[in-house]
């Protein structure tokens, strides 16, 4: 499932060889490729708000993919990290008047702390049990935040999180300008993608995949599987927290739905649609998901019906997802 293709391409058919070669070099220089794509992305998308959404949810799905795709552990609690990232950033800005950059850092750290606690409780439950435990724990976070309506705004969500004008000294822009907003978010996502790739390339990343392939064997090789799982869970939580923090700035409100388990489900769907355990998959999945949602909701109010059917079709017939299938075709 690795997205680094084998160099053995002798029997590749002549037709499509160029395309295949392109796909291979894309996979080899994955950070550059994804950044280059995302850089020109707003030019080809209908409107910038959608592009920002894809950026943020791509990051969310990427963070989730570390646990699901690379380590092979299905979590249904990642909405907690996204939501807490959002709420912590929002609360820091609204209630304490903290500027946007420290607020984002607070959001990421808060998500990490929640991931430490949730991971600490859930990590001992193995296999499919893990999905249920993380889901229940995340739902617990949902109710907690819901109850603390003085801080979180309860059912209405937290309003007034606008960062407005941003002055970096050498450049000044407004987040109300959609293009500026996109590239502002892009910088954070770019940094995250760089780190994500470095983590996957490190020995730690190799242990993650070892756990996915055979947990008992990884254990027998002397790796501390429980601790590695916990680290991966927390790191994944940090990425999702960043996505949440950016979403708070993007929407200028934090809806209570950002903590609901349906959002965890969205991360799962995006990963699977794009291709789990691949570097580009989450972004491809986020793009497919949000573009389809954008198109279908203009025609009907029953988007979840279509989403459910598309998802079922992918689970049954295309479990590799879009990008995973492309890679499979290239390797053939």
């Amino acid at each position, binding site marked *: 499932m690795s997205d680094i293709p084998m160099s053995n391409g002798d029997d590749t058919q002549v037709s499509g060889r160029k395309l295949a070669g392109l796909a291979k070099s894309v996979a080899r220089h994955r950070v550059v490729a994804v950044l280059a794509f995302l850089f020109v992305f707003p030019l080809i998308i209908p409107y910038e708000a959608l592009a920002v959404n894809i950026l943020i949810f791509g990051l969310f799905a990427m963070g989730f993919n570390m646990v699901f795709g690379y380590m092979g552990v299905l979590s249904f609690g990642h909405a907690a990290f996204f939501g807490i990232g959002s709420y912590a950033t929002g609360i820091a800005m609204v209630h304490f008047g903290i500027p946007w950059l420290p607020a984002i850092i607070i959001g990421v750290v808060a998500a990490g702390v929640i991931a430490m606690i949730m991971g600490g*409780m859930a990590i001992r439950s193995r296999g*499919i049990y893990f999905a*249920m435990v993380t889901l*229940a724990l995340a739902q*617990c976070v949902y109710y907690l935040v819901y*109850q603390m309506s003085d801080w979180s705004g309860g059912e209405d969500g937290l309003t007034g999180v606008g960062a407005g004008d941003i002055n970096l000294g050498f450049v000044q822009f407004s987040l109300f300008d959609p293009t500026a907003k996109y590239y502002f978010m892009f910088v954070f996502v770019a940094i995250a993608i760089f780190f994500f790739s470095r983590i996957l390339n490190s020995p730690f990343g190799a242990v993650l995949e070892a756990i996915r392939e055979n947990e008992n064997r990884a254990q027998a090789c002397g790796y501390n599987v429980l601790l590695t799982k916990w680290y991966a869970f927390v790191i994944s939580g940090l990425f999702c927290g960043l996505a949440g923090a950016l979403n708070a700035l993007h929407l200028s409100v934090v809806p209570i739905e950002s903590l609901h388990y*349906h959002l965890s489900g969205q991360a799962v769907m995006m990963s699977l649609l794009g291709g789990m355990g691949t570097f580009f998959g989450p972004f491809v999945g986020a793009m497919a998901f949000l573009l389809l949602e954008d198109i279908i909701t203009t025609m009907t109010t029953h988007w979840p019906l279509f989403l459910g059917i598309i998802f079922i079709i992918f*689970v049954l017939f295309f479990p590799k997802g879009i990008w995973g299938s492309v890679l499979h075709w290239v390797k053939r």
Partner: protein
Amino acid sequence: MNITIELLALQVFTGLALGSVFVLLGIGLSLIFGLLTVVNFAHGAFYMLGAYVGVFLIGLTGNFWLTLALVPVVVGSIGLGVERFLVRPLYGRGIDYPLLLTFGLGLVIVEVVRIIYGLDGVPFSTPKELSGATDLGFGYFPTYRLFIIGITAVIVTGLWLFIEKTSFGLVIRSGARDPEIVRVLGIDISRVWLIVFALGTGVAGLAGVLSAPMRSVIPDMGTTVLVEAFVVTVVGGMGSLIGAVVAGLLVGMVVAVTSLVAPELADLSMFVLMALVLLVRPQGLFGKKGLMG
């Protein structure tokens, strides 16, 4: 607030009634998991479906008892089709895939019901012979909730007899232990899985129609119930029927008593219980070690 012993006793009964619904949901979930190792994420949707099929059938027949008997059959038949055509192709493809499939299926079911019945709640009145309250000696308690406790006891006993005392139950129990050996012995295990899936979803549908007069019948009613059912199975131990019964009643009681003492914490109490159980016994109260491995 003055909490008398009578008030507490009544609340315990409320907890039992609430817990009974949890028991039915947890049993279905546990049964399906124990045999098929499928976590049914559409369980909440089947519960909701039960309530709506109940609304439909009671409009058709006007008879509550007939409806109560037919709902599990209808919902179970839908479960039958789901297992046969959607879940079955995924066996042997990794444990996460059926879970993901049922998650998508849950979305579809909820949306289909939304298309047919709309977003608003549908009324479901308590049958005449079960409305009103019964004197328990220390206070009056809604008769309908007593009925739920009673019918759950009957169903749990029936299921227990079915699984422990019949020859088909023997196949179910051995199938949970080792499906390969059961297959080698010449038993069509996929038929057993089919029936168990139908049984589990049918019981979920029954839980839905039973709680219809107590909770409002809306397409989203399964969303929170799914999480509650997960908490019950995590507390009781996946795949354990006794665990589902004990944990269901326990969770119901904890929620009911908390809502008497500290109403604002009622939603949270079950998660605190779950967290405590996870810290002490990660495999659940009645779960076996290594079952989930």
